[in-house]
């Protein structure tokens, strides 16, 4: 949880019990200059549910999201858990600098007092923007949380575009560079993933050779520093 980045200074101390009802909207802003987010998954769920957990191996559902932007597995998992969800508030990719807001989510009388968000970062192998089980305040107000880039730990970050199969779980490669600014014919940055658990993404290497080099990514365009997204939650 990113309490360290909580910028709603006035919110300190106002977190109430996570099982209390809340009606709220969630706005996600892409803070990067050159990274796209695939359709986002926004979910209010109970205390036992996690879409991902740092230091824990990714589920198959998370892997599918992180490698190919596929939300079907995570959506099924959340439905089973009785979560309140909204998929794809941006109506497609969320471009650099862009923002998207959900409809009003209502946790009613349920125990869905925790907010999680995921979306794949393009172009990356298995990078994603994520929020893990953030306690939703019940006191009306505006709350801000900054999100980091995570690595699902499920695919070697070879940084090679593979538009045919790169989005399939277990198949190396980046499915797309929506900005149309990636190269080709790179030799590959690495063939191994040293950390098989979800961890903070180390960023991409890239290079300045669009027709070769080790990476199909551009070191001048596709790098980032955290945070990569800002979440603003307005509790009614």
């Amino acid at each position, binding site marked *: 949880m990113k309490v360290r980045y909580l*910028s709603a*200074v006035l919110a300190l101390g106002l977190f109430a019990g996570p099982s209390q009802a809340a009606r709220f909207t969630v706005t996600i*802003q892409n*803070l*990067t*200059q050159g990274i796209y987010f695939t359709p986002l998954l926004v979910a209010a769920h109970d205390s036992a549910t996690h879409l991902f957990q740092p230091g824990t191996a990714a589920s198959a559902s998370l892997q599918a999201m992180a490698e190919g932007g596929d939300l079907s597995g995570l959506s099924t998992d959340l439905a089973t858990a009785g979560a309140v969800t909204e998929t794809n508030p941006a109506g497609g990719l969320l471009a650099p*600098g862009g923002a998207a807001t959900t409809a009003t989510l209502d946790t009613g009388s349920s125990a869905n007092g925790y907010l999680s968000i995921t979306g794949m970062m393009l172009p990356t192998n298995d990078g994603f923007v994520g929020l893990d089980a953030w306690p939703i305040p019940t006191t009306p107000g505006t709350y801000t949380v900054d999100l980091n880039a995570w690595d699902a730990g499920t695919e070697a970050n070879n940084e090679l575009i593979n538009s045919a199969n790169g989005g399939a779980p277990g198949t190396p490669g980046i499915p797309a560079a929506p900005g149309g600014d990636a190269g080709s014919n790179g030799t590959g940055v690495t063939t191994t993933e040293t950390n098989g658990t979800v961890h903070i993404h180390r960023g991409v290497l890239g290079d300045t050779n669009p027709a070769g080099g080790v990476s199909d990514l551009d070191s001048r365009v596709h*790098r980032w520093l955290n945070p990569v997204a800002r979440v603003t939650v307005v509790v009614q």
Partner: protein
Amino acid sequence: MKVKRDQRRWWIPAGLLAGSVLLAGCNHGSDSTPATMKRMFKVEVTNLTANQPLSPIAAVLHRSGYHAWQEGNAATVGLERLAESGDGADLLSEAQSDSAFLSKEAGSGVIPPGQSGSIQMEAAASDPRLSLVTMLVNTNDAFAGLDAVDLSSLAPGEQLTVSAIAHDAGTEPNSETAATVPGPAGGGEGFNADRSGDVDFIAVHRGVVTRDDGLANSALDQSHRFDNPVARVVITRLQ
């Protein structure tokens, strides 16, 4: 060809900027200060980077409604000038014309890596916010700062500590060439009104590549890289 408006003088009194990441470090106590009484603040900025001098702080006290920048939006000319040259005068002028403006202050000098600089500010208002901006001068258009930090609950003697992250103004391509980096690593051009070739919106900075990491024409070396946060700001209410 670019219109060369301005200067290599990134060190002129200007603003400082920072990231908008807020780190609350105080207890908001009760405060019964009358709205008409002046509140005085000391603002101390510590440069946390390895080799990115920070241009003189440009700081504004204001009410709710003013923003020196907003991610995803285009930079004002004042912010562009600060982020490209370190000169915060235009940014402060823009702030002064905002209806939410209370007061402004410019730092007295560059804040070198590992060092701190401070200013004092005051305003007769019960709901002051602090925004400040500074340039990472060994870059094309990187800045850090605070965006409307609410000081209304800060009681006399209390402190608030906030971390600042690096942003990219989006107004100048990050070529990293000596001709375009105004700080000591380049000695190149500062402000240039031309925004072509860049995204023209404000984002979190992606960091510098440097010649040590394969950008052949970069004037920067590995020492100029940075990560967030890049500055720490301690705000103390003096009275």
